[in-house]
């Protein structure tokens, strides 16, 4: 194959790589430009945007952690119940463990609620109402 064709193919591949890899940077620049449009204090606007980004990241990070913990707790409650129903746990042990697990789950749900209450994104308002339902379902029986 001629060197020219090789060069053309390589340049095309490299251009494609630049387009793919540079996509997020181009989008971020466009967003920055939109933020700065009409702003007199550019440095200040950028600093505010950076702070907002950091805060959003921290909130998302905490939410991710809590959601992972919540899913794990749900699974643990189900597993414990299956252990009980298949005869691996005595009734007393099951009652005690189940109450503990549900209390722990409610703690996680409360934390999630507190987190979202700080700055509730509009799209998640409905989810908060459902979370309240979750809590009701998890209250220890008899409580």
């Amino acid at each position: 194959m001629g060197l020219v064709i090789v060069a053309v193919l390589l340049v095309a591949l490299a251009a494609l790589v630049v387009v793919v890899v540079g996509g997020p940077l181009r989008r971020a620049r466009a967003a920055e430009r939109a933020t700065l449009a009409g702003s007199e204090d550019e440095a200040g606007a950028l600093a505010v945007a950076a702070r907002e980004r950091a805060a959003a990241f921290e909130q998302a990070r905490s939410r991710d952690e809590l959601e992972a913990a919540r899913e794990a707790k749900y699974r643990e409650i189900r597993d414990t119940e299956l252990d009980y129903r298949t005869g691996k746990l005595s009734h007393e042990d099951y009652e005690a463990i189940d109450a503990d697990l549900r209390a722990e789950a409610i703690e996680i749900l409360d934390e999630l609620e507190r987190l979202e209450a700080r700055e509730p994104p509009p799209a998640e308002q409905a989810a908060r109402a459902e979370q309240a339902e979750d809590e009701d379902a998890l209250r220890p029986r008899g409580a």
Partner: protein
Amino acid sequence: MASFGFACLLLALAVCAYGIWASLHGVRSGRFEYADSGRRAVYALAGIITVAVLVLEVAFLRDDFAFNTVADTSSRTTPGLYKAAAIWSSQEGSLLVWAWLMSLWSSLALFLTRKRIRDVAAYATAILLGFGAFFVSLMVFYANPFATTRPAPPEGVGLDPLLRFPTMMIHPPMLYSGYTLCIIPLAFGMGALLARRVDAEWIKAIRRFAFASWLFLGMGIMLGALWSYSELGWGGYWGWDAVENAALLPWLTGTAFLHSLMIQEKRGMLKVWNVSLVLATGTLAIMGTFLVRSGILNSIHAFGGQTLGVPFVILIATLIGGSIYLVVSRRDMLRSEHRLDSLLSRESMFVLNNLVLVGLCFVILWGTYFPLISEAVTGQEASVGPPWFDRYTVPLALILVLLSGIGPVIAWRRATLANARRNFLVPLAFAAVALVALLLAGVDTKPLALTLFCCAAFAIGSAAQEFFRGTRVRRAIAGEPAPLALVALVRRNRRRYGGYVVHVGMAVLFIGVAASSSFQHTSELELSPGQTTHVGSYTVRYVRPTATLTPKFDSAHTGSTMSLGAVLDVSKDGHHVTTLAPSEGFYSSGEASQGTVGSLIGGQPVSHVGLNIGATRNVWSAIQPDIETPALKRIVTVGNKTLPPEDGIVAVAYLAREYLKHPPPAQFNLIVSPLVMWIWIGGLIVIGGALIAIWPAPSTVRRRVAARSRARAVHGLARA
């Protein structure tokens, strides 16, 4: 085209360098658009290496012998499918496939985590690209798959005949997938430590990849064992070869991790242990790659050349040092959130199982690497044979099988003795029935095998009880018929019941291993046509010799020039059982010095096994025909002197006819092994169980897409 392929490698190296910088800059500055750009660099790397693989693959399929790799590992007579698979039979090609698979799996992992744990994923991206840069650098500086020779040789050497076997087409990609998938949890584990975020989230992100690496490594190991049994002509499936062990080591630590990660998910415990297991598994995967590619081993698996040893040693030392530093420096964050409630709990069983698995890993690690270290220090070759491995691994394997039966019947957190006693009744009954049946059958000469059969029966009984009780509970709640209840039970608890299926598969596999290794009958002897011999309770008669010529008529379709074999009649108590047709393929060597005829059959001869498979036993046979008799040698000598290269096959045909007319005694290896088939059946059950466990649960999928279903899941907690 070769220059385009090499340019792709250079471009890949540049992309790796940029991606590492962008990811680290992004996570440190909080500007995650750079981290996203770094993530996309991984996608780009996958694309570029895919193009490079295609370039090399096309060269193989077009017989472009200007590529050194193609000339060294393929030929015009190599069958088409084996040509396509020959890319991973060379050092250079296998490095390219390694980098390719790693980039594909990395892209998938990073795509799935693109909206979560962004800080951990950014560090993981940098680490994955670091591995990518390492392997691409090896190809650029040490083992270039696109190196060429001009003018191109008219013919290639051909694929090693030993590799011309169907499972060999998928065994290496399976192992490479397993190894490269091990790198994903390692990268995320290191990322979690670097980001100081060691909660359950990173575990959740890598869980499926850890499972997938375990599954692929397991399938690769099984396929390798099948190849060894069916192709290598020694009748065994596991020889404690260093490269076999190298694949087994990360599989063992991976198994330990898959158990202990449940404890972290549920109880927030064993964080140091889990992250250490993840880092150890990844490091062992790299060590396995090192063993094969460094050139320090003399093995059918090993590729030649000593050039890659030093870079690999540096990488492994960096991994070990970095892992230790990260775990020690983050030890405060890795404290357990809870303590063990009771020694009689599933957590305790998992800890015990982890200790046994890691113990097994240490034994095999020592047996594998000790000879290499000893040789490096003393300069004298040393080796550790199967008896050494068996001495330590057999008792540990027994404990492991037993634990796989105990774990499922014990509850999480704490179990009471009364409950445990009741739950052990059925598994113990299974073990007792097995013991009595085996003693009545006279299987009492091998106590270790007998113990293993009983432990395996215990484990199978334990899993059967779990399925039965779970189905009964489901039926009581939902009022479904038993089959539907069973399916619903498994669908709702895939990891738990998939795991139990894996336990059953492993028990079946161990039964096959114990039976076939303890009670096999072997016979190695020379036979002439018409003679008979006895192997165990079978009589084997050498009926007549066979001979086939040229690749076109090669019964195994492996491209041999000539194949000589035998028809064997196998009978038992005077009744015909089966007819076997073992043969040995003779391949072209491509060495002009062997003469026009000699070079056509002067390559490495390869055995094609004659095998009768049965549920209770396999009858296995291999033949080594003698073509060094004076009469046959004379045909080759005369042909070399008188025939032009294009007519060499005429002399080979004459040799084959002479072999049929006056067959010399042939060397036979005959083996009757009980229950070998159950090793492969056990392996298939393990794969089935793993697929059940790894498949996303429908409820989980729903939860992901709708907030509403989260609430439903909570309400559904009351149902089993």
